[in-house]
C-alpha cells in the first residue's frame, strides 16, 4: 500500500528512521530533495529531507527527531501504518560533481542528510572529509556508516561525551588554519551551525553550500512561507533551494522566521499530550 511504513528503527532517543512505500517518489528522488507529509486528516504539512530511496523496491527513507507535535505523532506510527499524505520529491536536486577534495558537515539529526551527500560525492570520486556533531554521543547517528565511507571522519559533541568537545565549525576552522584545502564545503544541520561554517570558510573563499530547513506549507512555490534572503534577493527555499550559497544567506532572518510559531508549537504539543490546558 502506498505511504505504508515498511520499516521503523529508533536510531537514538527521539530520533527515528522510517522506510515508507512511495514508488513514484523513489523513482524520481535526487540528493538534496525533500518530501512534504501530513500525519493525519487535521495534520500540518511538514518537510523532511530524503535520506535514501530505492527505486527497485519503491521505498524512501526518512529520519526525524520528535520535536514538534507532528514529528511526535509521526514517531507513534508503526510498521504497517500509513502516512496520511506524502508528496515529493520537492526542491532542486543538489549538485553532485567532481570537486576534488570536499568537506561534508552534518549537525544533529541532519547527520543523516550529510551521510547521504557524502555517499554521493564519494561515489563519483571525490575525496571526502566529514565532520559531524551532536549534543551527546548517543545522538551521533550514522557515525559508523560514515566511518566506513569517508576518507577522514571528525566527531564532535557539545558535552564532550565523544570526540572533540565543541562544534563541527571549530574543527573545520582548525583544519583550514592548519593548511587543509577544500574545493567545496557542504553543511547541513542547525542554522547556527551552517552560519558558523559559512563564516569560517568565507575568508578562505571556499565554495560553501548549505541546505536550509525553512518552515513550509505547500512546498511547491505557492505560499512563500519559506522565503529567505540570499544575496539580497528573496528566494523560496522550496523551489529555489533548499541548497544555497552559504556566504549569501541571511541566517539571522532565517532563524527569526523559524521561531515564528514557537508559542503555537508549544501549545500544539500540550494539546496533543492532553494536559487539559484550555489556554
Amino acid at each position, binding site marked *: 500500500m502506498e505511504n505504508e511504513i515498511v520499516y521503523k528503527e529508533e536510531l537514538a532517543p527521539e530520533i527515528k528512521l522510517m522506510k515508507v512505500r512511495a514508488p513514484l517518489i523513489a523513482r524520481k528522488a535526487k540528493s538534496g530533495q525533500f518530501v512534504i507529509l501530513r500525519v493525519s486528516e487535521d495534520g500540518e504539512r511538514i518537510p523532511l529531507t530524503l535520506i535514501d530511496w530505492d527505486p527497485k523496491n519503491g521505498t524512501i527513507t526518512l529520519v526525524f527527531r520528535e520535536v514538534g507535535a507532528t514529528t511526535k505523532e509521526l514517531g507513534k506510527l508503526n510498521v504497517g501504518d500509513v502516512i496520511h499524505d506524502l508528496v515529493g520529491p520537492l526542491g532542486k536536486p543538489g549538485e553532485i560533481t567532481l570537486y576534488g577534495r570536499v568537506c561534508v558537515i552534518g549537525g544533529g539529526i541532519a547527520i543523516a542528510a550529510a551521510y547521504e551527500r557524502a555517499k554521493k560525492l564519494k561515489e563519483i570520486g571525490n575525496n571526502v572529509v566529514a565532520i559531524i556533531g551532536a549534543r551527546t554521543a548517543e545522538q551521533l547517528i550514522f557515525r559508523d556508516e560514515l566511518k566506513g565511507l569517508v576518507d577522514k571522519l571528525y566527531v564532535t559533541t557539545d558535552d564532550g561525551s565523544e570526540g572533540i568537545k565543541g562544534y563541527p565549525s571549530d574543527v573545520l576552522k582548525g583544519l583550514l588554519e592548519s593548511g587543509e584545502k577544500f574545493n567545496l564545503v557542504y553543511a547541513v544541520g542547525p542554522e547556527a551551525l551552517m552560519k558558523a561554517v559559512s563564516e569560517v570558510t568565507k575568508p578562505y573563499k571556499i565554495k560553501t553550500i548549505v541546505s536550509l530547513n525553512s518552515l513550509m506549507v505547500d512546498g511547491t512555490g505557492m505560499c512563500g512561507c519559506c522565503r529567505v534572503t540570499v544575496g539580497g534577493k528573496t528566494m523560496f527555499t522550496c523551489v529555489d533551494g533548499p541548497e544555497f550559497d552559504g556566504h549569501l544567506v541571511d541566517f539571522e532572518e532565517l532563524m527569526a522566521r523559524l521561531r*515564528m510559531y514557537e508559542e503555537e508549537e508549544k501549545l500544539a504539543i500540550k494539546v496533543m499530550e492532553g494536559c487539559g490546558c484550555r489556554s
Partner: protein
Amino acid sequence: MQKLDVRLKQIPMPELPVEKRLQTFDEVALGYSEEQALAEAARCLQCTHPLCVEMCPLRIDVPGFIKLVRQGNYVEAAQKIRQENCMPAVCGRVCPQERLCVLGCKNVIGDPINIGGLERFVADYELETGVTIPDIAPSTGRSVAIVGSGPAGLSAAAELAKRGHHVVVFEALHEPGGVLTYGIPEFRLPKKVVKQEIDYVRRLGVEIKTNIVIGRTLTIDDLFDEGFKAVFIGSGAGLPKLLGIPGENLCGVYTLNEFLLRVNLMRAHLFPRGSKTPIRVRGRVAILGARGMDAARAALRLGAEEVCIFYQRKLVGRVDDIRRGIEEGVKLQPSTKPVKLLGDENRWVKLVELVKLKPGQPDKTGKTKLIPVLGSEFLYSAETVVIATDHVPNTVAAIKTARNVKVDEKRRTIIVDPETLMAADGVFAGGDVVSGAASVIEAIKAGKRAAQSIHAYLMKH
C-alpha cells in the same frame, strides 16, 4: 403600489447578521428560500434577445433556466445550467455577476435580476436532491491527463469524460479544487459545496489523484509514456508576487497565498484542537494590495482588532463581498502604496510606512498614473501584514520544459494557439496559467474550450 414595488426591487439575499459573522467562518450569504426564488424569478422579463446570455462567458441560457424556476422545475433548471457549467453551485456564489450576466440584464425600470442568487438556488436544490449524471458517450479507449484540479482542470475533465474519454486529474496538494479549495474562504464558498461539485465530476468517471506534482513526481513526458494521449495543463496562477520593498520578510508578514492556504486548506482557524497548522493574527492587520478582501475578512474572524486594506485604485472582488467586508468592519485606504516595513528587535513586523498617491499627468492615451504625493508618508502600526498584490503562474512544476511548451517569460504564462489552446503537440493549456490571474468562470470556459479541441485531437490520433 405595493405590487409594483415588489416588481421593481430585487429580492434581497438573506445574510448572516453582521454581529454573528465574525464569530464563525460560516457562509455569510444564506441563499434564497423557494418562495424568494420564485418571487425573484417572476421579475425576469424573459427577453427575446437576452443580453444576459451574451454577457455570460459560458453563454448559459439564463431566461431559459429562470423560466424553469418559475414553473417550479428546479432540477431541470439546474440541469440546463449544468449542461454548460459543471459547477453551478460554485459560480452562483463566486462569479462577479454584476460585471457579467447581471450587467446585461435589460430590466431597465427596476433592479436587475439576481441571476447568481437564482443559479445558486437551483444548484443547491439539485445537490440536495442528488445530481443526475448525464449520458456518457461510449468509451473511446483514449486517456487524457489533466494537470491541476482547479476550475479549468475540472471543467476540462468533466467535458472529456462526458465524451467517453478516460480522464485522470493530477493535483499537487492533498485536496482537489485548486483555488476553490485553497483560495476562497469558507464564508464565501463552503468547502462542502466544493466537495459536492467535485464529487459530480468524479461521478462522470473522472479519476483524481492528489499529492502528485507534475514536473516533480511525474513529468509530462512520463504521462505520455504511461499511455495518455493528451495532456491539459490547468495549473493556475499560484505564485505570489512580492512587493520588493524593505522588510517584507519580517516575521508576521504573509503573502496572500500563505494566509489563505493556512486558513482555507489547512483550517488554521481551528488551531490547535481541530487543526495542527497555526496562523498568527494579532492586534492590527495591514493588508497591502487590492486582492486582499478575503484575507481581511478572514483576519477579522481570527480576532484582529482592526483590519485595513491599503491599495491603489480599485479592490478586486464581487460587489456584494466588498460590501459585506465593509459591513464587517474592514477599513479601506485607497490611493496608498507601501514604502517599507519596519520590525522590532526580534524581527517581528511593527510598522508599515506608506505614501499617499495622486493622479499624475495623463499620458498620450489619456491614462493617468498614480504618483506619490511628496511628503505624505505615514505610518500604520500592525502586528500582522498580508501582501495581496498579484499572483502569477507557478513555474515550479517545470512544465514549461516539457514537449516544447513555450512560456512567456515576463508574464510566466504558457503560450497557446488562441483557437485550439494547444501549447505543443498533444499538450493543451488553459485558465490562469495562460491568461494570468483571472476569474473562475473564465477558467471553466477555457477548460471547456480545451476539452473540445482535445476531443478533436484525440479523434484524429
